[in-house]
């Protein structure tokens, strides 16, 4: 192949590389143990190390101008606005996960009280001091290292990059490190269908709304790595092939009518053996454990029978409310099959206000 022919191909290859997503995650066994439950972290203010240019400032201004409607606050520091936006987006995305996150206002107030502010917050050598001051198990650092737009006439690329690191208080080392760059490319790599689109699409690809999408996408995807939850799991809609089978669920009633104090609500279910079974009384009491009382061998898969009992206390009064039964994989508590028992609806009348 001659150099003349190779040059456009090389250019196209470079654009393809530029338009790809870069993603790197490193974890330690301590992080998996932390994710198993009970771990508490503080997320310190993010640092912005992205190259600053005209596009950077104007794009942040568009995103940050609604931080307060009070007005009269003067000019917003674009760097601080960007760091705040990314930090908030990430913290709100991981709050549904198994690792508990200190509220940002508590974190910021306590850091100020302990004299930790400014650039000292970005220095990882202060991680232990911060963890002890805030009484948390780990400190999470964030760095916005990419926030740029580039225009190459036949192609434009917008990119957002975020780097995260979690320092553990006990082991005194990094137990989670992740870096992600997402790019939105418009022009040649998008598959233009004509000369006009070759010229127009790169310009359309410079719109600020794409930066907003990239920001949310980067934080969302890194949050998924941090929490171990997929979009489907966050929506409580895991794929059917990933959840245990729940073939039967019912309420065992000794009598019709409302349950009184001292009486028991018994729920039974049949499904995949050796799963975690629970039931909910509407939204009143949730996650009541059910015990596996029998296992039946079956060529299609072992079947477990589960029983859960709730004893009514004096003063309770709710309903009519449905019962929901869930069967989850023991190795993945987010992979659950949930069924609503259609009939009967449960009423509890053991005295008390309503």
């Amino acid at each position, binding site marked *: 192949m001659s150099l003349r022919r190779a040059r456009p191909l090389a250019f196209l290859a470079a654009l393809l590389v530029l338009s790809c997503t870069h993603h790197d995650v490193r974890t330690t066994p301590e992080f998996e143990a932390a994710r198993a439950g009970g771990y508490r972290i503080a997320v310190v203010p993010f640092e912005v190390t992205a190259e600053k240019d005209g596009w950077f400032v104007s794009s942040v201004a568009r995103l940050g101008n609604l*931080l307060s409607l*009070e007005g009269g606050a003067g000019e917003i520091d674009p760097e601080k606005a960007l760091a705040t936006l990314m930090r908030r987006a990430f913290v709100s995305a991981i709050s549904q996960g198994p690792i508990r996150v200190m509220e940002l206002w508590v974190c910021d107030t306590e850091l100020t009280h302990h004299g930790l502010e400014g650039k000292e917050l970005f220095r990882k050598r202060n991680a232990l001091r911060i963890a002890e001051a805030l009484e948390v198990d780990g400190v999470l650092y964030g760095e916005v290292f990419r926030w740029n737009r580039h225009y190459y006439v036949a192609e434009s690329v917008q990119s957002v990059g975020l780097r995260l690191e979690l320092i553990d208080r006990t082991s005194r080392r990094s137990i989670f490190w992740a870096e992600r760059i997402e790019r939105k490319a418009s022009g040649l790599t998008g598959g233009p269908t004509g000369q006009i689109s070759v010229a127009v699409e790169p310009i359309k690809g410079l719109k600020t709304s794409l930066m907003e999408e990239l920001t949310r996408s980067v934080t969302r995807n890194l949050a998924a790595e941090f929490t171990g939850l997929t979009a489907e799991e966050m929506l409580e809609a895991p794929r059917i092939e990933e959840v245990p089978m729940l073939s039967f669920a019912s309420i065992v009633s000794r009598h019709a009518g409302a349950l009184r104090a001292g009486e028991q609500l018994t729920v039974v279910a049949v499904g995949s053996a050796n799963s975690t079974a629970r039931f909910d009384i509407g*939204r*009143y009491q949730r996650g009541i454990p059910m015990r596996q009382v029998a296992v039946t061998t079956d060529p299609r898969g072992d079947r477990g029978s589960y029983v859960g009992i709730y004893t009514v*206390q*004096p003063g309770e*009064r709710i*309903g*009519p*409310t449905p019962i929901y039964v869930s069967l989850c994989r023991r190795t993945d508590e987010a992979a659950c099959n949930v069924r609503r028992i259609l009939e009967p609806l449960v009423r509890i009348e053991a005295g008390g206000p309503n």
Partner: protein
Amino acid sequence: MRSASFLWVAPTLLLSWMSGCGGVQVQISKELAVPSVVAVLPMGGEATPRELNYLRSRVREQLRVRYLNVFENDYVDRVLSERGWLADPDRFDPEALPVAEVREALGVEGVVMGHDFRSGYWNFLLLYRRSLRGVVGMYVAGGEHSWQARHRVSRSGGILLELGQIFSALRNQFQSGSPRVFVALAEEFVADVLATLPELQPGALRRSPPPRIAEVEVKRLPSAAPEGRIQITVEATPAGVVSFDLLPEVVNMPTVEVAPGRYRGIYTVVRGDELAGPLDVKVHIRDPFGRQSTETVQHPSQVTSEMTTPSKSQRP
């Protein structure tokens, strides 16, 4: 010729309109004092229960990062259920709630409520559209809304709309129906809407002490059934949610607050439960904001039917 031009212009205008509609419509009361403690009520509308739950959790988490103290959604649901306002979660209409009474029952300065949520999706091979719209409002003392935002977000595309970027169009069309797209739309909706809510400064917030467990009592109840029942009574911070763990497979067994600061729950032993030897009972309390404490009590002896003397908690 004229009719042919119209056939091209009309769809183009329609597609432009579809992709261009959006923007948050906000109403803010002039006297709005942003509350520091709020609760997010269950959402309503034609979207699926899963989608409404997800929207609600996103609203809560995004309010928390905006310097507000926000009650846990599970705690809010429990109070609503106890008061008879939330019987069937799948048929709940937030607009039917007596907002002022709800706010008082929860003991918060404001409640955030969402309604009229609709999630739409259609895919006609050359064209697709996925949308989400709804209304979110905040209600403070007096019951009138102090802030309300109406918004619609959407993703439109397809080869017909993205004729100049055919690779991108095909990729987007293929992914348009996935849960990821709904999650992205929901995040965009909540972020846009809450960006119009004025913010508190961190110094304006106060925090009550974390919940504490003072005493735990474990005893066996007389029962006609051979397996028997175990009663746990806990003295702890009032207005919390207390649960206990008895066995590795019996976790988060609920209790009821039978008197202010006194919680009681009963576990019925079933076939296969092994309760021989000292019993470790772990008790958890969560306050309305989700802060939690745990106490572990070791019952000194085997729980048998002859046991009648209750044992007190022993701090490790």
